[in-house]
């Protein structure tokens, strides 16, 4: 009885979240496709052709997994951050808070919505990439697992950001000053083996390095870091961020007075 109620509640939140980003598809789905197309044209076709090979592949093929992952990260994060903060701002988050919806269902619903957008945008970017390069797949299961876990990680991050946020500025600070630098320095455009030893060490503390490399392994079969380590990092981040999100919502931080 309670399990059935929770499943319906979860489906309702998911339905609402997916409907939200589909309703504003011009803002949510089109920009990543255009941005990534520009990356392909500039870094792939124009500059990439002069760079030559990287990791045994032409530059365009090398950056495709990273670019897909970049769009998954930013979209899963921003979807939950903006949707949950907007629900706080308009106070319609109270619709869920007054209902018998367990906190884990709220977290799962919003994270599921973020994952859905991240993976849909990832699919769109992959489709766009097919116009520029022959996509090869080394291990589909690694691709699916990496994209699912990465989108879940950043959706959780976006949720925590939205819980703490007091204004719309607060949900753009983390993406601008933390997420974007980490992504650009996460091995999207280069192999970290090209870096001096010191910076290779520094890169090891950037979690996005592990996600991009695991994803690249799924496509090309090459990686700068151990696959086991990559999935371990993802696992640790998901468990940690989920725990933090649950504690914050249970305590009502930013939600209850």
């Amino acid at each position, binding site marked *: 009885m309670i399990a059935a109620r929770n499943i319906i509640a979860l489906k309702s*939140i998911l339905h*609402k979240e997916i409907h939200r980003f589909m309703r504003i598809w011009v803002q949510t789905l089109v920009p990543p496709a255009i941005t990534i197309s520009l990356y392909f044209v500039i870094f792939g076709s124009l500059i990439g052709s002069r760079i030559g090979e990287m990791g045994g592949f032409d530059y365009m093929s090398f950056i495709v997994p990273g670019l897909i992952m970049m769009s998954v990260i930013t979209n899963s994060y921003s979807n939950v951050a903006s949707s949950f903060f907007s629900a706080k701002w*308009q106070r319609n988050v109270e619709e869920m808070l*007054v*209902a018998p*919806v367990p906190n884990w269902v709220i977290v799962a619903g919003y994270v599921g919505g973020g994952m859905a957008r991240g993976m849909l945008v990832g699919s769109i970017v992959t489709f766009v990439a097919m116009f520029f390069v022959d996509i090869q797949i080394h291990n589909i299961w690694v691709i699916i697992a990496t994209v699912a876990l990465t989108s879940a990680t950043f959706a959780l991050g976006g949720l925590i950001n939205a819980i703490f946020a007091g204004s719309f500025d607060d949900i753009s600070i983390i993406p601008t000053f933390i997420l974007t630098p980490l992504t650009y320095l996460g091995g999207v455009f280069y192999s970290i083996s090209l870096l001096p030893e010191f910076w290779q060490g520094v890169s090891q503390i950037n979690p996005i390095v592990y996600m991009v490399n695991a994803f690249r392994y799924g496509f090309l079969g090459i990686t700068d870091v151990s696959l086991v380590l990559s999935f371990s990092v993802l696992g640790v981040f998901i468990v940690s961020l989920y725990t933090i999100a649950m504690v914050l919502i249970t305590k*009502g931080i930013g939600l209850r007075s």
Partner: protein
Amino acid sequence: MQSALTISGLEKTYKGGFQALKGIDLTVNQGDFFALLGPNGAGKSTTIGIITSLVNKTAGKVAVFGHDIDQELEAAKSFIGLVPQEFNFNQFEPLMKILVNQAGYYGVERSIAVERAEKYLKQLDLWDKRNDAARMLSGGMKRRLMIARALMHEPKMLILDEPTAGVDIELRRSMWEFLRELNQQGITIILTTHYLEEAEMLCRNIAIIDSGIIVENTDMKSLLAKLDVETFVFDLKPNSKPAHLTGFCFRVVDDHTLEVDVKKCQTINQVFTELTQQGIEVLSMRNKSNRLEELFVSLVGSGQESATSAIEE
């Protein structure tokens, strides 16, 4: 019979030290139409916030149909429908989606939720707007939308926080009628308002809260019996000479209108006697509080026919 709501020793101190509730006790019986009255900042909304888990309490106990909110919060929540004071729906969502999603949060299957949404949107005269974004609605429509939303899971207890604030008289009356029907169906209703007349019209029992303390908790009849003074308005024949009443507090509004405060120990007959002795003729008399409202409803609410009959009377 089990109480719909039991509150004991409820306290709330906000960050910064403001004590909104100073240990209130309250019991609302099943099927009751209960008014929680008080001035702005008295603690009405804080009390409702705690009952519905939007506000964390500092101390005390709250039980909804026997379910303690500390022990069985989800069970307690499932009995409550909340109509908050502020609009708190997604302004960009269509009405139908807002209602169906809300039902989903309570575990109502989508097919059933769609049927209920249709039922309540029609009852509340919002069916034509079902596919419009909520932001397109007028203030009164938004209030009705929040009532429909609160009913989607068919709660046993409906809590309305200032539901008619800023609503015109005609709409307020139709909302009162709708709430009466719900109460007759067995739904316990708790209403906060600072319109005394609204509480008087609808509620059987009443609590008055002031500065976080319940200062009165009784049935409506007992409370009204405590009313010491009522003000009556006398319409006098035009150009009457100035009236003078001994033993009454009165105000001459103009040459044909007189307001008189009649105490419980006095009678209206005494007023008539004195006015007759002074040769002043009374054309009609009304209780001051409902005069404008009655006039407005007779002209606008019931149409031309009732307006004509009012004139003929």
